[in-house]
């Protein structure tokens, strides 16, 4: 595979698929130029540094948002009936009398060591209280990814091979519609179809006793998982399809056709390998978007995850919980991208063979 043209790898399709990621470009243009073992790790380190910088900027935004909170944080924590003395004591205890930069560094040190303090509502340690929620969301996202990523790749490939035939046109049209629909529209339409009226085959919400895992009642998971699968399909389908079509029109594929290789061999042995490389990043972005989508889905189906916890914390102004969840969401995005970067570097044949 040494003869792989760079263009096939480097091209990142930006179809007008509705998605924040349409301007995202894969890292392959960078990797193509640096191919020694050292620079491969150096490049990953660079991406790691870039991810850390992103998280640092996110932490500044979170802290700045907290500073915008009108009124006295100590008073908000203690409630309306607190005495002046206790408010002053808490102000000193929380370091709120310190300069902003000191407060920020204190907070950042806590964030880095995963110490976000105690929930203002339940008084529990935030990290402990949120861990089961985090695991639930990870479980949900994991289940959805296992279904939706292979499914999207298969649909994308099938569309590209038979571009502009009926099936491809149908998938394209459906993608445009689904990509525009808010998560709650799809979730509620599925609920109306399958959990109400004539077909009451599924429960409309996740009902588990407090403390029990939502995964102990598999039937209740069908609707949230199905909704997230549908929501997450269009972007990856379009990226996969566009990338494979790009590859199929490149010179080395024409060469293979001229040699008289059967189409099946061309697609499987030659085109797919290259064209699926950008799909690694698209998959990571799909999962990252899913994390954002879980907020609405968890609310709709009463799924006890991070998204529902965020909505509850916003309603009660539970600052440490909000800060923790926002930070974790951002970290999830950075980590997913890093994994995609590493995978991309290791499966790009140009890089592997030198």
């Amino acid at each position, binding site marked *: 595979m040494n003869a792989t043209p760079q263009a096939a790898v480097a091209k990142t399709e930006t179809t007008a698929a509705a998605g924040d990621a349409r301007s995202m470009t894969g890292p392959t243009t960078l990797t193509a130029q640096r191919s020694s073992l050292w620079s491969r790790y150096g490049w990953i380190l660079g991406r790691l540094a870039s991810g850390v910088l992103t998280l640092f900027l996110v932490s500044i935004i979170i802290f700045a948002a907290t500073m915008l909170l009108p009124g006295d944080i100590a008073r908000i924590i203690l409630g309306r009936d607190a005495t002046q003395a206790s408010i002053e004591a808490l102000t000193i205890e929380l370091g709120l009398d310190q300069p902003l930069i000191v407060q920020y560094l204190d907070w950042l040190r806590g964030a880095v060591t995963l110490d976000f303090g105690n929930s203002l509502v339940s008084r529990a340690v935030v990290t402990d209280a949120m861990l089961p929620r985090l695991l639930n969301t990870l479980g949900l996202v994991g289940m959805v990814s296992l279904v939706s990523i292979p499914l999207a790749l298969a649909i994308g490939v099938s569309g590209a091979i038979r571009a502009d035939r009926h099936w491809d046109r149908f998938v394209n049209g459906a993608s445009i519609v689904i990509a525009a*629909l808010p998560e709650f529209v799809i979730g509620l339409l599925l609920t109306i179809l399958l959990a109400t009226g004539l077909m009451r085959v599924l429960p409309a919400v996740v009902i588990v006793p407090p403390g029990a895992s939502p995964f102990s009642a598999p039937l209740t998971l069908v609707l949230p998982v199905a909704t997230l699968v549908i929501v997450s399909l269009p972007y990856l389908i379009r990226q996969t399809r566009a990338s494979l079509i790009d590859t199929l029109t490149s010179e080395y594929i024409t060469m293979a056709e001229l040699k008289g290789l059967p189409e099946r061999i061309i697609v499987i042995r030659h085109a797919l390998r290259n064209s699926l490389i950008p799909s690694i990043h698209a998959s990571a972005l799909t999962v990252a978007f899913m994390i954002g989508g879980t907020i609405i889905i968890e609310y709709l189906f009463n799924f006890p995850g991070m998204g529902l916890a965020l909505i509850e914390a916003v309603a009660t102004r539970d600052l440490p919980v909000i800060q923790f969840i926002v930070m974790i969401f951002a970290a999830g995005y950075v980590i997913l991208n890093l994994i995609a970067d590493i995978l991309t570097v290791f499966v790009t044949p140009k890089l592997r063979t030198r």
Partner: protein
Amino acid sequence: MTAIPDTSTASVFIAPPTRSRVRRWLADTRTIIGLGFLAVVLLIVAFGPLLAPHSITEFLAPPFSPPSAEFLLGTDYMGQDVLSRTLNGGWTVVWMSATSATLGVAVGAVLGMLAGYSRGFLDEVIMRLSDVALALPTMVLTLLFVAMLGRSLPLIVLLIGLAHAPSVARVVRGVTVDVAGREFVESAQAIGAGRLRILLRQILPNVTGPIMVEYGLRTVWSVVAIASLSVIGQGVAPPQADWGLMVNENRVGITVQPWGVIAPLLLIAMFAVAMNLLAEGVDRALQVGREGGNQ
């Protein structure tokens, strides 16, 4: 990201929206469907309040009454008329999403053109900010600030608009880099045209196509974010009539009276799908004739 890949320009065909392209856009079935959906939504927003048969805040019948001759879509969780609230409930989501998309595209286009033409420092800033914008989904960012500053519609519009700006800037920057390398820009530079003049007279006309596509897509994302905020109870506040809020209010009665959810749901969907179809159509119309074509 250590360097800025220019691949974003690879598939954006740069062309001003000429008359023939507009005609091609209008000849597309999907554009017609999009315009039709948009017309329905805008007509409801404009004339719905005049046609509403009942008050939007009055208790008229038992909650979640099924559709009847008097209440064509039944009543909602407070016994209010679903049809009247639906006819009144479009204005908030339409003005909020249009304003935030306009804000995001305006700020993003200016930054993107400046960065694409001048390169350098601004480039780096935009790449950083768009990384942050991707790491902090619009909903998360908005919820963070709404939690601190309280529920406020202008605040939501501002936040969603600003959240769009870096990604728009990134797209516009990519196209600008491409345009800036063309002969007509070089000849304008050669006759001593100033930076502002080149940006307005040479660059802007050639990036309007991609900006229009972005505007449509950003409207879609604004609708999604704004309606979603109301659905989780952090957007428009009761007793106002709003499609997203109606979904939130009537969701508990979905098994007995689904119309309180279905009616607003379909209109939100029509609005978002319409804008996506129109944006897609513009993109296709611009790409026809480009080398390799639009498959």
